[in-house]
């Protein structure tokens, strides 16, 4: 089985490539990237005036299975991923039960083998039951295939426990992903602390609750020699700490999500619970800082923090509504609209943030178009516009902050493992 992607602008930062050429896929692998490839391939994708890039690697996805199959499943989540151009993703371990033991890892592994439509990598929790009391067996979980640990949704409060997690992760060469939040400081808040929380009459989530915990985790990780990845950075102060740590040569990487650079706290004013996530949308100044940090390379990765919830848990009183928004199917369009379209990032830079860098950070064999690699490729219309419609989501959940917004950039084809796994339906 051969597929030829013909005449697209091929952007592959790993190989320093950005030119119009062809990509040939054979037996599930990339066989050739060159001008005017001669082939007997029956399947030919006309990519003229389109952009051909490695499939996206989203290192922050909540697939909800096992336990909350009403929100999302491995199958529905990976289908949503393909629709958004994501061919590889890291599944967060805050499932029910959490991925904190060999048994639970096996359960998830089995579901993935049977139902996943894209490449799913697994993060285990840092502590058993995500309770912040006792570490999981990091070394043996690593042997069983996990690529990172995280208590995402929570932060490990105990300094001693977290320090020991960093040491053990360092010994086993496992990435530690930190959801940085001091819950004593975030105090059951619902929106950014400040004028927004005050005018809405809601408890606020301070920036301190985020950056103080980043500060702590940097200190602990540095001493332990572990690789630290900061999840969902939302504010200026956090960026400054990360920039400083990078300058000092500490092994730290950071990610943000599209809502933190595409939106700010003004979006939440009408109590739209699809704008409620943790950390919350911050000020316009923070939003600008996030964009600048992406440009400057302080933030390495754009990940969705795809957090599907049912309407019953979302379309209710603001304080009671669950935190989190979906993102797999909008992250590329939102990033093109906000970053590429505004000339803040060029295409190679965007591909680094959404594919190459996360693959490098996770140590997985993805994020490039190097011949011989599995053919995970997407074909994108960079200028084509779409309006985000509730009824068009593939995900089981529809809690997107971009509902009814006009975004630029459409994923025309997603090729995963050498097969056309998704094709945009509208002409």
């Amino acid at each position, binding site marked *: 089985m051969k597929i030829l992607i013909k005449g697209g602008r091929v952007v592959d930062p790993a190989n320093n490539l950005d030119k119009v050429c062809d990509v040939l896929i054979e037996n599930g692998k990339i066989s050739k990237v060159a001008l005017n490839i001669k082939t007997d391939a029956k399947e030919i994708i006309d990519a003229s005036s389109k952009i051909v890039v490695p499939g996206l690697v989203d290192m922050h996805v909540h697939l909800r299975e096992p336990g909350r199959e009403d929100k999302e499943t491995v199958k529905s989540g990976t289908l949503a991923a393909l629709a958004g151009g994501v061919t590889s993703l890291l599944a967060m371990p805050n499932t029910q039960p959490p991925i904190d033991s060999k048994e639970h890892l096996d359960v998830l592994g089995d579901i993935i083998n049977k139902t996943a439509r894209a490449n799913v990598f697994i993060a285990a929790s840092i502590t058993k039951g995500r309770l912040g009391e006792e570490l999981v067996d990091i070394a043996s979980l690593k042997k069983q295939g996990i690529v990172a640990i995280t208590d995402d949704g929570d932060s490990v409060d105990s300094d001693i426990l977290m320090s020991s997690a960093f040491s053990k992760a360092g010994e086993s060469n496992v990435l530690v992903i930190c959801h940085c939040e001091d819950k004593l400081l975030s105090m059951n808040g619902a929106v950014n602390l400040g004028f927004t929380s005050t005018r809405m009459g809601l408890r606020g989530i301070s920036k301190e609750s985020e950056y103080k915990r980043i500060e702590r985790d940097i200190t602990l990780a540095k001493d332990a020699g572990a690789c630290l990845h900061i999840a969902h950075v939302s504010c200026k102060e956090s960026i400054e700490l990360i920039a400083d740590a990078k300058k000092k040569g500490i092994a730290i990487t950071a990610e943000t999500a599209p809502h933190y650079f595409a939106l700010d706290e003004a979006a939440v004013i009408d109590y739209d619970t699809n704008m409620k996530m943790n950390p919350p949308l911050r000020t316009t100044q923070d939003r600008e800082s996030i964009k600048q940090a992406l440009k400057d390379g302080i933030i390495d990765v754009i990940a969705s923090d795809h957090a599907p919830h049912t309407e019953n848990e979302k379309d209710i*009183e603001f304080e009671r509504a669950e935190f989190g928004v979906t993102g797999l199917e909008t992250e590329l369009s939102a990033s093109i609209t906000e970053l590429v379209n505004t000339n803040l990032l060029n295409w190679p830079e965007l591909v680094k943030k959404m594919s190459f860098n996360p693959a490098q950070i996770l140590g997985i064999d993805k994020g490039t178009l190097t011949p011989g690699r599995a053919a995970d490729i997407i074909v994108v219309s960079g200028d084509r516009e779409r309006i985000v419609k509730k009824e068009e989501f593939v995900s089981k959940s529809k809690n997107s902050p971009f509902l009814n917004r006009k975004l630029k950039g459409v994923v025309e084809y997603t090729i995963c493992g050498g097969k056309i796994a998704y094709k945009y339906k509208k002409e």
Partner: protein
Amino acid sequence: MAWTRKDLLGLESLSREEIELILSTAESFKEVSTREIKKVPALRGKTVVNLFYEPSTRTRVSFEVAAKRLSADVINISPETSSVRKGETLVDTGRNIQALKADIIVVRHASSGAAAMLSRHLDISVVNAGDGWHEHPTQALLDIFTLKEKIGRIKGINVTIVGDIAHSRVARSNIWGLTKLGANVTLCAPKMLIPVGIEEMGVNITDNIDDALVRADAVNVLRMQFERDESAAFPEALDYFRKFGITSERLNKAKKNIILMHPGPINRGIEIESDVADGPNSVILEQVINGIALRMAVLFLVSQGHDKKYEDIN
């Protein structure tokens, strides 16, 4: 100008003209309550549902009296006696009320944004009778109405709001309404009860009650809600009274005709001295009287706004 909104959710979103329209409409309705037959047919055939998730006497009764004086039918629903106890959601309750062909829901709820949420899901009118710490627009409007009646204008007057600003929807609505109409607003409270960023609403802030009173044409004294969960962060009651309580001694140092308001219910001896509450500066009972005219105006206008919207759609 004509009123075009089907709902009244808060004062933040209203223009100065819209606020003035409510006030002038209330003025014309005030006379109705002095008639021998205290009724006009403005809302005859309409149904108003009072949906109160928090205990309330004066606001609920005030809305009920207002609706009845407009000849509307009134139904009162409280959580203790309804399917809310069986776990029905706010929106489902709202949809059921709409299905009964009610015309206006007056809602009070502990969650900020609850009225806005109902409004998003329903075609019928929604009037916010207090949502969490967010807004209590009719209370602020009746406060402003009373001030205007007493002083003759709002533009340029100095109004001081004393008490638990952080957890007060009355304060927020008053600030929006008063500043839109050009009053100078000063907030006075212990620092821990001043919410972050409130100065962006265009107010002065002090924790010295004497400073706050010296130039004030009116003082609105908020209820100290010691029953709240957040009371751990509260000052002790007697200490609060000593530092912030409105006493005759403090009032003697203020303008002679300073107007004293309180949204009720009063904690005598905590935020206000008992004699002061009943004294010559107090307009507390006039606020209650004006509340009826003001709420008649609001019910009337949202009903008109709804009908107008409906006509436009068809």
